[in-house]
């Protein structure tokens, strides 16, 4: 018996470590927002992120005043940093949705301690991503023309254009992600409301928790709503990035026009997303002493997901090269040669292979999967790699296409960088605010993982939680 338990523990390691009760969980997580003194490093981090976000603001101001010519885009490279960043951010968002929706439906318990901030990350990444398609247009003040609304101009949209599909895919994604995140927050907001001492915060949390009392009826409706949203989100995980990939694969440009793009992009998105989740959760876990909730097991699982999706992406790279050779199409084969070897951007490709292909091979080893340090390093490398992947796809395909007379080079300008780094600043500003004002880990869901929750049969666990929440 004893041995069996050991084996069981090995296979299904506990998702919460240490001796925790319902109350301690609420304390540990809720106190970060309510009681504990805001740590000094929060101010430093927030300050830096906020400053960088100002660069974004200034760039956008200048961009609106002058036009997108302040960037390095040109003929033939009509898209460059703008769309690279868009795809990168959208990709990052995907991990959040995957964790919250698909893992929920698959009943993966380990998602509970990371889903809250993964969802927040999704939302903020989509906010960053959404900026680009809007601002990359020549006349952003007319970008609303992409919305199908009855108008006196008698104009209608071109629904054959992948950009139109994008509009719907991204806006749906943003809406569902926001709803999902907010609905998931409601019970915890109620907990915070009950525990807050400051009348102002009490009021705000009260407002946001929408009168949550934790009654059985509340829980019943909550569970159904959450499940419906998870059901809605699940196809989105696959569809959004597939549609983003259509922006490329529907066109006839060598290097874009490839059938492998949808799965390859989705895998890449999850890959990039988990890298970003790790980049966020490792410092959080470390600084806010959340090792009990975000355990080594979590890190190992995320490392494994990264490895799996990374390998799919690497397979994609192989397939692209294979298509170039097997198609016997002179444009395709020139494109792949130019990308890998003969072209002026060859180093970008090999940097990408190093970041996304070679660095993840360390994740085969438990030593690296368990190490906060190595996981963090690899995650950063993968994030860079995924950005490079979009650079390679977008810029190196556009810069040498069909008619050699029209080929050109691309170099980014100061404003390309300030816009890109600015969104990173903006993203971390939002993350910092989230860490400060909202529970970074879902309190009530973690409580379901506690041994206390398993005393009675599973069906009633939530009621106990609810009692606690309103106590």
């Amino acid at each position: 018996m004893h041995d069996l338990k050991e084996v069981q523990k090995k296979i299904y390691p506990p998702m919460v470590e240490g001796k925790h009760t319902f109350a301690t969980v609420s304390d540990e997580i809720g106190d970060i927002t309510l009681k504990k003194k805001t740590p000094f490093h929060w101010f430093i981090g927030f300050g830096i992120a906020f400053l960088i976000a100002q660069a974004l603001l200034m760039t956008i101001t200048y961009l609106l005043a002058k036009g997108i010519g302040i960037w390095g885009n040109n003929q033939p490279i009509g898209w460059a940093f703008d769309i690279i960043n868009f795809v990168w951010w959208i990709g990052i968002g995907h991990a959040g949705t995957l964790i919250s929706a698909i893992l929920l439906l698959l009943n993966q318990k380990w998602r509970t301690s990371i889903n809250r901030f993964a969802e927040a990350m999704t939302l903020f990444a989509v906010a960053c991503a959404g900026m680009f398609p809007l601002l990359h247009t020549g006349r952003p003040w007319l970008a609303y023309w992409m919305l199908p609304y009855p108008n006196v101009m008698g104009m209608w949209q071109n629904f054959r254009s992948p950009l139109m599909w994008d509009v719907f895919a991204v806006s749906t994604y943003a809406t569902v992600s926001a709803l999902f995140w907010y609905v998931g927050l409601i019970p915890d907001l109620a907990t915070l409301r009950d525990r807050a001492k400051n009348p102002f915060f009490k009021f705000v949390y009260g407002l946001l928790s929408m009168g949550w009392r934790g009654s059985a009826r509340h829980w019943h409706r909550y569970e159904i709503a959450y499940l419906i949203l998870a059901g809605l989100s699940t196809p989105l995980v696959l569809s959004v990035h597939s549609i983003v990939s259509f922006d490329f694969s529907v066109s006839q440009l060598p290097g874009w026009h490839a059938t492998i793009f949808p799965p390859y992009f989705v895998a890449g998105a999850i890959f990039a997303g988990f890298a970003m989740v790790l980049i966020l959760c490792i410092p959080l876990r470390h600084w806010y002493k959340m090792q009990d909730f975000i355990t080594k097991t979590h890190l190992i699982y995320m490392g494994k997901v990264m490895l799996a999706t990374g390998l799919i992406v690497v397979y994609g790279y192989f397939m692209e090269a294979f298509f170039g050779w097997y198609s016997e199409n002179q444009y395709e084969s020139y494109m792949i040669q130019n990308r890998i070897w003969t072209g002026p951007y060859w180093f970008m490709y090999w940097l990408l292979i190093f970041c996304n292909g070679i660095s993840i091979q360390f994740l085969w080893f438990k030593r690296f999967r368990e190490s906060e340090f190595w996981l963090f390093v690899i995650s950063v490398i993968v994030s860079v790699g995924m950005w490079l992947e979009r650079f390679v796809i977008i810029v190196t395909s556009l810069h040498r296409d069909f008619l050699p007379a029209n080929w050109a080079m691309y170099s980014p300008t100061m404003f390309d960088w300030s816009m890109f780094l600015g969104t990173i600043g903006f993203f971390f500003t939002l993350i910092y605010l989230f860490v400060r004002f909202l529970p970074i880990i879902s309190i009530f869901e973690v409580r379901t993982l506690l041994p206390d929750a398993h005393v009675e049969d599973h069906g009633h666990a939530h009621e106990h939680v609810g009692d606690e929440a309103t106590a």
Partner: protein
Amino acid sequence: MPSKDSKTNFALLRNKILSQNGKNYWRSVEEFVDAPEFAEFVSREYPQHAEEWSDGFSRRNFIKIMGASLALAGLSGCIIQPAEKIVPYVKQPEEIIPGKPLFFATAATLGGVATGLLARSNEGRPTKIEGNPDHVGSLGATNVFAQAELLSLYDPDRTQQVFYRNEQKTWQSFVAEFRGKVEENRQNGGAGIRFLTETVTSPTLIAQFKQILTELPGAKWYQYEPVNKDNAHQGAKLAFGSPVNTVYKFDKAERILSLDADIFGGTNVRYMKDFSKGRKVGHGEESKMNRLYTVETTLSLTGAKSDHRLAVKPSEMTEVAKAIAKALGVSGASSAYSNKWVDVMAKDLLEAKGKSLVVAGDNQPPVVHALAHAMNAALNNVGQTVTYTDPLSEKADVAQTDGLKELIKDIDAGAVKMLVILGGNPVYNTPADAKLSKERMMDDAKLPFRLHLSQSMDETSELCHWHVNAKHFLEMWSDTRAYDGTATIVQPLVQPLYDGKSAHEIVQLFAKENFEKKEIDIVKDYWKTNGLADDKAWRKAVHDGSIPNSALPAKTVTANTGFLSQSTPAPTGSGDLEIAILPDPSIYDGRYTNNGWLQELPNPLNKVTWENVALVSPKTAEKLGVNQGRDANQQAGAGEGTTFYNTKGGNLFSDLVTLTYQDGKVSQKVPIWVSPGQPDDVVTIFLGYGRTRAGKVGTGLGYNAYEVRKSDAMWFGKGSISKTGETTTIASSQTHFNMEGRENEILRVFDYDSWEKDAQTTHQHNEYELSMFEPHEYKERKWGMNIDLNSCVGCNACVLACQSENNIPVVGKEQVERSREMHWMRVDAYFEGEDVNNPKALNFQPMLCQQCEQAPCELVCPVHATVHSAEGLNDMVYNRCIGTRYCSNNCPYKVRRFNFLLFQDWNTPQYKLMRNPEVSIRSRGVMEKCTYCTQRISAARIEAEKAGREVRDGEIVTACEAVCPTDAIVFGNLNDPNSRVAKLSKDHRNYNVLNSLNTQPRTTYLAGLRNQNKEMPDYKAQEWVKKAAEKAKEGAANEGETKKSEGASH
């Protein structure tokens, strides 16, 4: 309001007080001004009520204006009203229908040779320049310079009044002083008067000068132009004893040899037109293709188009010419040079006696010209393909540089009291050893009166006492001669924008009487006695744009070969390299430096814009260690790179060198461009740049080759270059000249022989039928265009015509470096041949919107801003465009152009006048592209519908088609089986660019042909054709079975 001279005018009183000087003591105002009106003024109770100050801004006026402004402020709050007064025609003037342009015949003169023009006038504003089909020098086409003159007319840097030492003056004050000076100089017969003009071929102006020079026998008139016909005239003198004007008939020549003569880059469009007649083969009629041999130094448009090209050093040219003369049997010719190339070529020329032609370039020494004359004589070409006339200009027997040297000598001797420079820019462009230098020009003791007539304040004007703002030729009455002497009356289209003056008017000021004679009278009076006696004839000549039977009569001259025994001086200078000088293909000798259109017009051969470079061969570049960052395979002249953080924009890096020529050093650093086709150890530099006072556009660009040019080495000499270690960025609109083995799909050039044997070999098969969908049926019209690559010589005229017609903005050097030029039409250039460093040829392909039937751009626009029209055009709706640039990304031809910034100049008032009112001005953030000149299509369609008929073939002429000097572009209705374009589209040479994408373009091309001589040592079959055939065979073997069963046809 009381009048100004009212007795109680306050200003009067004030002046009275102020006019009192000295020590006057006074006790009261009354006593001080002992005047009754003053007494009245002060005695009034309310002087300020009773009287107004005559300051022009009275209280009443003030209130009136305030009231009005307040009222109007309310109005202008809603919409921004234009500041101009809008005045409708109450009585409509004859012929002017608002919205309907009028065309007027006139002519542009460059280097003393006229191109007849029809200038379009919209509501009195010249808006476009077309060639005059009735003019011998044009036949409806123009070159880039004539096109760009429109921008020169509206150049905001033109001076707007007379200046005296940079001080604004009136014409009247100038005339007063000038007449005084003239009379002063008349005392000694005008001995101190010197005129300096450019080459003058205007009969009226020549007559005026003759008149003045008889009135003032001491005065002298010199002509100097940096690009001139000195060598041609001196060569004719060697051969015939007198200078002649040589007239070629390229249409009659079957074998043409160019000795460094740039027929296509030159200024004579008629020659291009004639030449292209020998390139229009097929299309039903039996015509032989001509063959062009070129011996030249720098790869030129002529060399690129030639069937066989021999690159030689400039110093070798004379010997090569002698060798050719020897092989052609010119008596007395001997040469140290021998080459099989020369012998075989000579044999070919001899086989076409009377139907061949030898042309020498103006930059070749006189002896080469003389040899060319002797060769033409030996080939019995005189009277057949070449005729001679008297020179177009006066005093052609004296070299312009010799005249210039004489003038400089006189100036240094202090003999010149009055220097009248009419046009030109001699301070800038005279050779270094006969420079009208600053020291000479600023010496008031030696040159007490200097005048410059010029359109802008340039290097010469700023050193002159007087600057008179000149008229542009579209503003003035004058006359000029075409290449064969045919005279044209130049008529103004518009009142002088800034009240400028012309050379006729300045020269007239020297006349004893009637010195203020009107320009039109000067010209008219001349022609009254020279063939246009009655008013009717005058009106007809002005209307038609040429004077009938005014061509100079053919002159019979006999070539002697005595000159062959004379020794030819070789350039003396130190240095291990030979350096050749050429006028810039875009900005010529520097007169167009301030013309943005020409600055941004890519050099036809290397596509460099906005500056001049120094050309070296790949081997020489390697030897000198310059531009080694370049990818030889790509055949760009400079190294392509990328930067992590790009501030300036350029991605094309070139080494800077210091260059010396004939022991003179160019003060600016010179960027290097590696040019395949250039002979080794020869550097080519270009004139026209490095100007210190050109205007907002042209000042400070490039290096100045005039600094080192010598009067005894005007075109080539010795020199050296040394690396400075610095690099610069080059703005080139094309960086990749290698087709990467895509000949079959992009630019197809076949051997003439194989095509003649079996035209099927050039056939391209398409798969239009394999679509899953029924093709759209066009019931009425279906526009299409065909471009004949066999005729196209890559001269760029279409690019500029398109820019002018469609209001395409100039973006500037930095934006070109960022690869954002806006030309809707471009001419792609690709080197041909396996050895990328020693190419066989350079082929050209005008590229514009292909108006695809299955347009990739239309599919991807999210807002339907680019859609198909009922007549099959791919329309671009600017107002709908939000600027996603997706259409451009998906366009395989990359012919779409995006307004990345606000490229259009919305503020300069002159440009507002210039623009074509029928084409909208695009703003920032909008995609644009070729529309097939949709405004011209609409105009013709409306006319046809009004008349209840179909649009006739040839009724719609796009801007590029109209300007094309080789008639390579044909536009028309593909649905009309009798239209030219429909017939051409059935030609076997017709093909689609990127056919494999099945975009089904409306713009198709006729494959080029190369009429090589099989015996020539450099003969080489078109290798790609063989490869493509092999591949097709392979493909057929694989898919043959399935194809057969499907019964696919072409």
